[in-house]
């Protein structure tokens, strides 16, 4: 897309203010349901002359209306999508997005190639965020003590209330992390006006430990900025930097760029649960959360930090091997710790990196973009207890659900006379608030934000607020009586102030166009460690204990719970467990044996006198002696999709146990709970499906991946169809790049109008995803490795599905696509039976039934919505192919390689998917197909798939590999 589509991104700034435009947007709401009255005179005339039989056919033609605008909208042509550059902010950090809109409806989010945190890619959360926009359960009205009110009433109320606020002694604001420069400016304005007020930023999955570690190490709270593309050796201490500890796709991109055979990095992971990062590791060791810090301390000592060279002869061999590898790669290696680890571990890690000469090369430090912390909540609770809090404003946060259990936020709220809650959902916190205000979705509102590296960008709306929501900035502007009241003005004025002068307007237009404000990234800060303080940390050694530990980690579907009502995400299987619509207490097979539990047994988890119930899931590769559980489930007031889905672990999570807790008691209840996965079998059964080799093996035998196929001596009984002419589409999936993150699954769902089927249907094996990530465990059941394989329709040249279709609903296009005509399909399912890849999906029921009009707004108009009883599958995004072909034709030029991007390819943060014309020998896909690692899945069946795979490489440390081999 890149260059080409950019022509169409348009700024909405003028139009948004235009009342005509607003009306147009509002009209998008279906007041005008189909009208059946009106004349059918001509038709009746026709029918009157015909026989009774023909009368029946008259029923087939309902009258349809076309409603054009009354006034044209500049630059808009009905049927052509428009693209807008914006940002999506999660946990205070922004990612650049491009929003595709059709007739004023945002339908698809892509990454913004210009934005440093995105570089054209988008994560699963970003992809799914467009569905949340159209969530019919979103907050629709201002509520005052549960009764319907209005913004006007609230405005009047707050104006008079704030007059009596004095210096703001009783005023407290709780919000999520604030990375937005304009909102930070507003906050400063508010606190200036009410100097006694206090503002608490709380994120349940904050990254404060990193900054706190930097404060310990360097004396200043700094944010480390990683450069994975510069690191030859990476040691991750429970840091899921490829997975959920990374909210921007850029780290995956940097990492994947260094997985190429010519400059391959090496990744060591020590972790408790099985994370995406662990799944991609060259070496992985299991450790209880508390033991991870031990590894950091050990590494520090072995590296002789602070002059304390104290080799430990009894140390495990793998640790000494890591140390040697790190020492060999001074300045080109990187050690990092996960956000669940305490500040002391982070401090050691910062120190290690500094001593290895990595600071400034593979990691540098900047001022943090956000500063969050749970401590503020503790103080707030104390103040509320003392009756000091009079007015509590909660902006876009849901602390009743996700605040630390010992804060007891619900009790806290009951002690405050006036609580105001702004949120997108009428959620758990809204239920206890005096006032609940609907919050605008990021696609509906103006704003700004910063990426993790500090780069600022403007968030521009692509649709008027559907349910009358407003932004946090607008609410603060009301509270603080700020000169501007609308976020458009607030954001614009803020940035115009930054730029000043005549250039300001142009810079504003540029910022909107590019979706990024250049030159705003934070400068690197020079650091120097304080060895004395760090040596003290080294001396700390927590007593060994055999207690069970419990680790809390983000959910791949709901994150911290905020996406709980998003059906796409709920249905997306967890990349590792493949569980959908649930979380579970994951534990290793050995731990489960010792607890005498099996997957699906409900257990009671108890710690510190608090207890929750959760079902067990036995996860091979999990650390023994520990349990891990995803946060973000068990919500009660998020909407019809997410209510009572899964089990809520927050009641066990306290201020001091944000990452993990020790002393866990697990008790079997005897109850069973149905856990549902999209993959029931986890072994490759010795079949050469995912092919992999070590880097050394690859160098010795580059075409190792083709060996399992042997020599296929195919003898054909008939003259085969020739595909030598014109475009011939094909795809290559680089298994070495793929990290298994699910972004493609969600992108495909958004692009192709794939329905949500629900937990019960998934249980029956009827999930509809067109692309699935096959995840196989390889090796020892207690400590296996993981192999991924994204599988969608392979577009076989000799497609077995086509031959068996009795009505020719699936057949081949001259360009080698395995076409599927939904309207011809009668639904025998024979094609799916005969598909060796099992990628065809059948509409067993009407999965689009009962959707509200607003939910249908997310549909891509270029893709047919399938009815029940028909088969569907990956089309290689044929709608995108056709669109680009027409475009090239219109411009009188041949198609360019890389011009057509499939949805999965476009969003892939690892750039693992390449699509193109295999008839063009110079295309990227053709070049990759000539790669020695290229192989076809199930080649022995002679289906001749157009999708092929590049075998995976691992880069184990030869020292350890030799040992593992022996």
């Amino acid at each position, binding site marked *: 897309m890149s260059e080409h589509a950019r022509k169409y991104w348009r700024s909405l700034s003028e139009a948004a203010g235009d009342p005509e435009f607003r009306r147009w947007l509002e009209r998008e709401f279906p007041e005008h349901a189909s009208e059946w009255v009106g004349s059918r005179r001509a038709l009746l005339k026709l029918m009157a002359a015909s026989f009774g039989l023909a009368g029946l056919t008259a029923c087939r033609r309902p009258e349809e209306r076309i409603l054009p605008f009354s006034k044209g909208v500049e630059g808009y042509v009905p049927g052509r999508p428009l693209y807008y550059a914006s940002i999506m902010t999660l946990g205070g950090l922004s990612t650049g997005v491009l929003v595709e809109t059709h007739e004023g409806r945002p339908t698809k989010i892509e990454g913004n190639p210009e934005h440093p945190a995105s570089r054209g890619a988008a994560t699963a959360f970003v992809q799914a965020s467009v569905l949340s926009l159209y969530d019919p359960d979103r907050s629709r009205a201002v509520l005052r003590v549960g009764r319907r009110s209005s913004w006007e009433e609230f405005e009047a109320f707050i104006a008079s209330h704030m007059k009596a606020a004095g210096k703001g002694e009783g005023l407290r604001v709780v919000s999520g992390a604030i990375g937005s420069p304009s909102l930070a400016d507003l906050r400063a304005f508010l606190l200036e006006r009410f100097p006694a007020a206090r503002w608490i930023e709380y994120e349940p999955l904050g990254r404060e430990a990193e900054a706190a570690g930097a404060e310990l190490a360097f004396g200043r709270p700094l944010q480390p900025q990683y450069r994975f593309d510069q690191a030859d050796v990476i040691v991750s201490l429970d840091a899921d930097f490829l997975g959920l500890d990374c909210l921007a796709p850029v780290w995956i991109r940097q990492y994947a760029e260094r997985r190429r055979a010519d400059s391959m990095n090496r990744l060591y992971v020590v972790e408790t649960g099985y994370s995406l990062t662990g799944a991609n590791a060259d070496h992985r060791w299991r450790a209880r959360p508390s033991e991870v810090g031990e590894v950091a301390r050990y590494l520090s000592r072995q590296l002789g930090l602070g002059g304390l060279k104290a080799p430990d002869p009894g140390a495990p061999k793998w640790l000494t091997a890591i140390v040697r590898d790190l020492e060999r790669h001074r300045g080109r290696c990187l050690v990092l710790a996960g956000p669940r680890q305490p500040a002391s571990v982070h401090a050691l890690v910062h120190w290690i990196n500094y001593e290895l000469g990595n600071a400034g090369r593979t990691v540098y430090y900047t001022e943090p973009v956000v500063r969050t912390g749970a401590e503020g909540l503790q103080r707030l609770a104390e103040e509320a207890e003392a009756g000091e809090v009079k007015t509590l404003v909660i902006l876009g946060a849901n602390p009743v659900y996700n605040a630390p259990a010992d804060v007891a936020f619900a009790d806290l709220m009951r002690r405050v006379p006036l609580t105001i809650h702004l949120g997108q959902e009428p959620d758990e916190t809204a239920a206890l608030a005096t006032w609940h205000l609907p919050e605008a979705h990021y696609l509906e509102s103006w704003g700004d934000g910063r990426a993790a590296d500090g780069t600022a960008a403007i968030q521009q709306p692509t649709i008027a607020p559907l349910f009358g929501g407003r932004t946090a900035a607008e609410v603060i502007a009301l509270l603080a009586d700020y000169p501007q009241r609308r976020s458009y003005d607030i954001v614009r004025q803020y940035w115009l102030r930054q730029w000043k002068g005549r250039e300001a307007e142009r810079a504003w237009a540029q910022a909107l166009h590019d979706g990024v404000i250049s030159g705003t990234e934070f400068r690197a800060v020079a650091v120097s460690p304080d060895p004395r303080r760090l040596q003290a940390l080294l001396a700390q050694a927590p007593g060994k204990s055999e207690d069970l530990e419990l680790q809390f980690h983000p959910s791949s579907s709901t994150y911290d719970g905020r996406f709980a009502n998003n059906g796409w995400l709920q249905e997306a299987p967890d990349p590792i467990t493949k569980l959908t619509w649930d979380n579970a207490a994951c534990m290793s097979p050995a731990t489960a044996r010792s607890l005498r539990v099996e997957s699906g047994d409900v257990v009671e988890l108890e710690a510190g006198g608090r207890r929750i119930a959760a079902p067990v899931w036995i996860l091979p590769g999990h650390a023994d002696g520990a349990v891990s559980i995803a946060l973000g489930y068990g919500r009660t007031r998020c909407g019809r999709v997410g209510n009572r889905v899964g089990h809520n672990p927050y009641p066990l999570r306290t201020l001091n146990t944000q990452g993990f807790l020790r002393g866990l008691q697990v008790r079997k209840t005897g109850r069973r709970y149905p856990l549902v996965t999209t993959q029931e079998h986890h072994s490759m059964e010795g079949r050469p499906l995912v092919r992999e080799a070590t880097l050394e093996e690859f160098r010795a035998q580059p075409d190792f991946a083709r060996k399992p196929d042997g020599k296929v001596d195919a003898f054909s009984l008939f003259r085969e169809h020739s595909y030598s002419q014109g475009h011939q589409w094909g795809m290559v999936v680089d298994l070495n790049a793929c990290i298994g993150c699910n972004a493609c699954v969600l992108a495909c769902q958004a692009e192709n109008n794939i329905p949500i089927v629900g937990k019960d249907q998934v249980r029956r094996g009827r999930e509809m995803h067109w692309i*699935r990530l096959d995840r196989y465990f390889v090796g020892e059941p207690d400590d296996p490795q993981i192999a991924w394989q994204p599988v969608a329709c392979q577009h076989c040249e000799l497609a077995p599905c086509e031959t068996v279709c009795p*009505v020719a609903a699936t057949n081949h296009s001259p360009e080698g696509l395995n076409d599927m005509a939904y309207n011809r399909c009668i639904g025998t399912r024979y094609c799916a039976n005969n598909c060796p890849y099992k990628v065809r999906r059948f509409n067993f029921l009407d999965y689009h039934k009962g959707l509200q009009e607003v939910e249908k707004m997310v549909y891509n108009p270029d893709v047919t919505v399938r009815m029940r009883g028909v088969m569907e599958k990956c089309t290689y995004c044929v709608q995108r192919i056709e669109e680009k072909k027409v475009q090239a034709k219109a411009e009188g030029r041949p198609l360019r390689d890389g011009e057509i991007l499939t949805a999965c390819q476009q969003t892939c943060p690892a750039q693992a998917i390449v699509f193109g014309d295999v008839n063009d020998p110079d295309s990227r896909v053709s070049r990759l197909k000539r790669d020695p690692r290229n192989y076809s899945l199930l080649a022995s069946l002679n289906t001749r798939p157009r999708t092929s795979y590049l075998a995976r490489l691992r880069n184990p440390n030869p020292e350890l590999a030799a040992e593992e081999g022996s």
Partner: protein
Amino acid sequence: MATVSQPAESPLVLEGVTLTQVTSTVAGVVERRTPRAWWFAFAFTGSLTLVLLAMLTYLVTTGIGVWGNNSPVGWAFDITNFVFWIGIGHAGTLISAILYLFRQRWRTSINRFAEAMTLFAVACAAIFPAFHVGRPWRAYWLFPIPNEWSGMWPNFRSPLIWDVFAVSTYGTVSFLFWYLGLIPDLATMRDRAQTHARRVIYGLLSLGWRGSARHWNHYEMAYLLLAGLSTPLVLSVHSIVSFDFAVSLLPGWHATIFPPYFVAGAIFSGFAMVVTLMVIARWFFGLHHLVTMKHLENMNKVMLATGLIVGYAYAVEFFIAWYSGNPFERFAFVNRALGPYSWAYWTMVACNVLAPQLFWFRRFRTSVPVMFVVSLLVNVGMWFERFVIIVTSLHRDFLPAAWGMFRPTWVDLLTLAGSFGLFLTLFLLFVRFLPMISMSEVKAMMASREGA
């Protein structure tokens, strides 16, 4: 039940039976007042038929999702039932056609009965391909109907289209065969009828049959032709049904042994069903002197033979799976015998291979209770055979990540039960209103025996 002492060569019609006695015995069943037991049976099977209707209505209005089918198990009870019923439907034509061509006289007492069974079984079978599709209201696209909307035609390379042609031809030809055989007997019914209504109805149905020698001349030729045509037809139908599987590439389906294996299985199951129903009808309507132990014994011998063929096929499948060296094929069969559906596999083996071994012994072969139980077991076993072939092959094929399990829903089970309801209801109507033994053929056979 009168016991008949069997001479060394058991007669096909007991000695001393006259032609009139044949007529009155067979026609008498229809002319007698409807027995109470018939009404009870009819009420039961009729209700089951209504259950079938209800299930199909629910299916069509809601979607295939009411069944347990899923991905990867796209076919389960639906096609299992289809193949099962089509298999049952093979005995009738086989008895009528092949045994006719081989001049097996013992067929005459049972062919009508078996043909009717064929017809009803094909009717039951036809339900499933029609209703297993996701959009049954579009099922007419399976036929090559010219149209000016899409200009589309069926894909004649698909075994399902072959199925459509095979099953519809088979149903039609079976009906013609059955009806052709009925014409003289309908004339008999017409001429014996006591009420005007019956006379008119049988009169119309018999098409004015007079029994003229010229009639018989053409009639016998037509009958011979139909027998000659039906013989390859009956072999082709189950071969083509087996192509649904054999032409695919699924391990467990893709096998060249399938056509003969399926045909043998079909005959096996068909004979089992004939025995099951014949034993009941013979006892209930007192047809011992027309349907003698000789008939039953011969059918049991056929069951033994076809059972052995089927058992051989099971063994050969395993051998080929091992011998081919294809890991997918090997796994598919190991999974059948030892996987999660092994209970179905071993049920199948026990019922189809072990149970008929009793028929090596004359004592069991000629024991009505034994043959009744064995025939029931074979029915069960043959249903499981199709279930095993379809479900165990689909549920674990090439990519382990896509493996799954099939669990039937209550709709699946009730639809299966309902199809039995329809079958038995049609059968009850048949035995109530039409002569269930071919009188003219029995008479001809008796006459030729006397002549000999």
